């Protein structure tokens, strides 16, 4: 969870100890004992709702347990079961393909929108920001249901295709083996692009205006200035956007659950959906936890890679 947090600005702890009441406190960056009462509420919430469930999941993954009967030690059986599960390979592949739609496309679109509306204060910029960010605010269950109707046999998408003379290509997009995953992914693109844009615009605003001026005096046009001045300044924001959206692609559940439920015939199965089925349909808490642990490792690997690629000194 903490991977998404930006690195703490470095100079601050030093300044704090200079002017703080405990000027003689130990090395900068260390928390004195007096800080604990202030930290305690947050620590309790974090331990209770993040650390404890995570540790419990790890513990359950080694048990044979249906949620009621006394659990029995299962060793690595659950892990053997989930890695040999025939549906899992396809589900992980699907999740990786979703990264294209949840991460790559939204970052690209976010950059384009940033190039178009950042920089100069244009009339209506706030309006566009709100419109593009709106999908982030809507609950995914409502988003999924609405898109399911739009994609249906006589939904808006097909009616539009009919109106522009492409009626032959109309189909039930989420019901077709070949198009379901892409159709699902594009809903993710629609949701995530606004988030990326808002992150990038705020990043672009931090870029020193003098740099833009200097580049302009040297004869750089708007495109050149975006690529050479704005884009390098957005490295950190792109990293954060990449982390958030990749987690959504790999660990996402609600959107798939309400649109296709993994169908047709498993074409849009994702790991989180299999975790849900194991736990709540089959009542196999052990195997569900083991799969959740595998999924967590997968997410950690990808997030680690993204952090490595977007480091300031990379």
């Amino acid at each position, binding site marked *: 969870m903490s991977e998404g947090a930006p690195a703490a600005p470095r100079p601050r702890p030093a300044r704090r100890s200079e002017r703080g009441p405990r000027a003689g406190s130990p090395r900068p960056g260390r928390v004195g004992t007096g800080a604990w009462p202030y930290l305690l509420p947050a620590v309790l919430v974090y331990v209770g709702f993040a650390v404890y469930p995570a540790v419990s999941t790890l513990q359950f993954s080694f048990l044979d347990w249906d949620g009621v009967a006394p659990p029995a030690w299962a060793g690595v059986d659950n892990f053997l079961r989930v890695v040999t599960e025939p549906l899992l390979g396809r589900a992980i592949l699907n999740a990786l393909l979703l990264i294209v739609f949840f991460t790559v496309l939204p970052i690209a679109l976010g950059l384009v929108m940033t190039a178009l509306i950042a920089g100069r204060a244009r009339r209506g910029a706030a309006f566009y920001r709100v419109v593009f960010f709106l999908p982030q605010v809507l609950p995914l269950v409502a988003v999924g249901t609405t898109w399911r109707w739009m994609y249906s046999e006589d939904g808006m998408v097909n009616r539009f295709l009919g109106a522009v003379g492409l009626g032959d290509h109309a189909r039930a997009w989420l*019901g077709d083996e070949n198009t379901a995953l892409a159709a699902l992914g594009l809903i993710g693109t629609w949701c995530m692009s606004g988030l990326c844009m808002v992150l990038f615009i705020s990043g672009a605003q931090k870029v020193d205006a003098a740099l833009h001026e200097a580049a302009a005096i040297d004869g750089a046009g708007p495109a050149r200035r975006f690529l050479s001045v704005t884009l390098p300044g957005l490295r950190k924001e792109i990293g954060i956007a990449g982390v958030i959206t990749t987690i959504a692609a790999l660990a996402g559940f609600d959107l798939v659950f309400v649109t296709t439920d993994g169908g047709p015939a498993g074409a849009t199965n994702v790991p989180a959906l299999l975790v849900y089925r194991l736990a709540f349909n089959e009542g196999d808490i052990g195997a569900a936890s083991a799969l959740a642990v595998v999924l967590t490792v997968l997410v950690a690997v990808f997030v680690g890679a993204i952090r490595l690629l977007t480091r300031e000194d990379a």
Partner: protein
Amino acid sequence: MLSTSVREDDTPDSASTSVTGEPVTLRLAYADDPPTKALVDGFTRRHPNVTVELERTQFRDYVTTVKLSMSSDDPPDIAQYNPGAMGSLIPAGLIMNLDLHAEAYGWQEEFPSSALEPLRTGEDAGEYGSGSLYAVPGSLSVLGVFFNTELLEEAGVDGPPATLEEFEQDLERVEDTGTTPLGAGALEVGGFHLWNALLNVLGDQQDYRDWVYGSPGATIETAAAERAARTLTRWERAGYLSEGANAASDMDAQADFAAGGSAYLVTGNWAAAALSEEMGQDVGFFLMPGPTGREPPVASGSSVSYAVSSRTGHPDVAAAFLDYLGTYEAARIQARSGFMPVDPAAAGAGEGVMGQINAGFAEVIEAEGLVPFPDYATPGMIDRLTPGVQGLVAGVRTEEEFLASLQEEWEDEHE
């Protein structure tokens, strides 16, 4: 929470049909309403000294919550039966064995035996259909075929078909008029309900029951089940099924049928109230017909049933509630709530589509032909049935592969 590894004693010391006059408070956990609240109100009117506290959970979360609450130190006295949850709770001894009360009250005569059958099992809950009684039905449902009379008239089809072959011819006639013959919500349960309705009339009833109940050696890889699957794919290839079936939820398919988007829809009586409200006199119902039309009627159905905690302080009062569910008065409440009553006589003749459903249902109960849905077989079966039928519809899975995947799941559970 899990202090003991010994099975709780689930048999009460004694069973009495008399209800105390002292004030008693029972707690009841449930997911389905209607009919639960109306039935509880009816019961407490008869026994004013009994107060029932209702604890409702959304259906989706019910399996999990009922498992936790029934295994806690302070469980509800009565809980709505759920096969997935009870499969864990019965072996733990947390659900009361109702055999003594069933005998004292004579429930075998009071309730249709095909409705009690799925609620019987052994101590390990490995095999259903026989053994001790663990719950009692408070209302039933039945699967069949709804049709749009107006669209059928346009296609020159005169009323319900007498045989399966005739039904197929009718589908073709409708297809010729350019209307989608058969709606199906294959995104959810609608797809496998169609296969199930075909299997009911093509297969041997006992073979199917054995498989759903988990009898040793049972299999779904039968010629009849394959024939049912082949019929479904043949209809799909012929264009009888709605095109976007795999992306349509059950509500989507129902709404589409109500709006005249398809001529037939295979679903249960639960859709009747909404359909007759929207379509008025233009909707009808029949049971899926068999190959000769003279077979005893068989149809899948489920029940909203109630089980008692083995730790309840008031086993006799809880049992009195279960007994009330089989009374004519309770059956009237069930029928009014849109369910099939456990006493078919209480449904009355009814008008229009309700009358047709009541008549069909009475035939099924009379012939003891009510069978459980196939997802009842194992907790994970629904995750094989829905994608499996989607694969048949999309043409990416063969009939043999579909049945083999069901059998594989069955054997995982019953090995």
